[in-house]
């Protein structure tokens, strides 16, 4: 990893820095993001309030940072849980084959039929709002993507010689899976996951915008858009700021995510 070109190192640093900023920035906001102050509604940009205040007098800048925390935390959780579930099931399905494979793949196929957005809306609608319910509903539609990919990797990989020789040595199945196959699959699937961060952030924002996701008084970019919608004609800034933030953040995640993916691809090709 340390042998990377300077440009590549910059990509990784910027990416991780932005993530960290959003995760920990919440603890350093100038104002309490939930503190309403009806005397200061719709204040414009000033030294005190960098991005002004919203319809309830809350500092927009603080809310954006807090919203970033929510968005990123939620997205990372979604990806982590989907990865763990998906890769585990894909590993089992691909390695053992047979009936287990068939059952898991039928489940995946059935889930894949339904459009992800609609299922996410329905599940979060049923469970109600709130951070963890949003995480669960998006995980429901994400896990099978990772499952499918890891299964196909495993199916190809398990025919290779080092797996065969491990088996002949008498290594137990779970050891083979953990020590040999798991690291291989993880590194491959990780690149997919990194690129997915942006997409999940958008999904979380969409759900919150519709009212099914993160609930008040928590801050979240999509939620802020929902709140600001009514005041669009009079105070468009309320809507523009969260929108631009979502857009910028997803651009950053996507851009660096795809760069990192390209780097890993090149590394893999070099090894081959």
């Amino acid at each position, binding site marked *: 990893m340390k042998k990377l070109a300077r440009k590549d190192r910059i990509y990784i640093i910027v990416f991780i820095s932005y993530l960290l900023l959003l995760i920990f920035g919440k603890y350093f906001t100038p104002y309490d993001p939930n503190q309403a102050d009806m005397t200061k509604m719709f204040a414009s940009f000033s030294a005190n309030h960098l991005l002004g205040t919203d319809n309830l007098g809350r500092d927009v800048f603080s809310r954006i940072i807090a919203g970033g925390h929510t968005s990123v935390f939620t997205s990372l959780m979604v990806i982590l849980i989907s990865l763990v579930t998906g890769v585990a099931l894909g590993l089992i399905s691909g390695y053992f084959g047979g009936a287990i494979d068939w059952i898991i793949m039928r489940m995946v196929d059935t889930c894949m*039929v339904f459009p992800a957005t609609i299922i996410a809306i329905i599940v979060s*609608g049923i469970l109600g709002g709130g951070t963890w319910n949003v995480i669960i509903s998006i995980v429901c539609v994400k896990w099978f993507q990772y499952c499918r990919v890891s299964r196909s990797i495993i199916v190809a990989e398990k025919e290779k010689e080092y797996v065969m020789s491990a088996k002949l040595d008498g290594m137990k199945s779970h050891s083979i899976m953990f020590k040999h196959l798991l690291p291989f699959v993880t590194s491959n699937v990780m690149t997919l996951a990194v690129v997915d961060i*942006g997409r999940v952030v958008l999904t979380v924002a969409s759900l919150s915008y519709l*009212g099914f996701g993160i609930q008040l008084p928590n801050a979240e970019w999509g939620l802020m858009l929902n709140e600001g919608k009514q005041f669009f*004609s009079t105070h468009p800034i309320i809507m523009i700021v969260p929108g631009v933030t979502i*857009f910028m953040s997803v651009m950053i995640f996507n851009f660096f995510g795809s760069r990192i993916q390209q780097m890993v691809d090149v590394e893999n090709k070099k090894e081959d």
Partner: protein
Amino acid sequence: MKKRGKLKSVVNAIIFFFLLSIICFLVVQLVPGDPVRARLGEAAAVMSKDELNQLRDSYGLNDPIIIQYVKWLGSIFQGDFGKSLISGQPVVLEIGRTIGTTLSLALGAIIVMAVVSIPLGIVCAKCKDGLLDKIVNGFCMFFTAMPNFWLGLILIQLFAVNLKVLPAIGSTSTLRGMLLPCFTLGVTFTPQYIKLLRQNIIETLKKDFVRAARARGISEIRIFFFHILRDAFTPVLTLFGISLGELLGGATITEQIYTMKGLGMLSLDAIKHADIYMIQAYLLLVGICIFISNALVDAGCRVLNPAIDIKGAEKK
């Protein structure tokens, strides 16, 4: 041999329908809360437990689940999907009123997608790594990151409020009314298609049969449209099959932004108010739509590449 294939398809369709119906039925069972209370609202507080229970009996809600499922399935085949818990109207009527809007919206979005992605995909492939390619790449990044609900709101502000050239409320009856909603819905899908088409055309250009066709003296235009594009299109069509589901999901959000009375808005209200019969019918409808669109995509792939069937059969 073909008959066996068709029989298999029919059997698959039936199995799919049953699985779909079971899922739709079960999902709604998971909705927390008591549908009877939800229906009666405040009046439920006044009624005694026994009375409520009697009501439940009359709705068949105390029967074992399998019986409920069979009864539900029976009524579906008779076209009775129950009544909406919000409006009291039959679900079929509500859906019938709104489905036209959503389908028009989806169709319009598909046209936008095709008109934008196909030419751009071809152009990018032709000037690979050129200036135009880089510009379109930037455009793709831009629209991939763009939240479609925000785009919609910005467009409304720009065209309806500031410039006043297009209506803020989408409507499928006029072309002007459809412009913004279809564009908003369609444009967020274009980046993946542009990239896919570009990639496929570039790869097909390298293939041997293109060189062979050139060596036979066939015109470049003919080679491009009848040989290259046809080869590159199959994965695009497959992606399209998958996208159709997302298109329906995106339509939900778009309808909300443009205040269009479509299926999406209906489903959002239903979910918010736990209108279980509506949700059931909606899920069922979505499942069937996906199934039909997958079948159409399969048929399309067969037309593009008639060899698929024969290849599959010969491998056996």
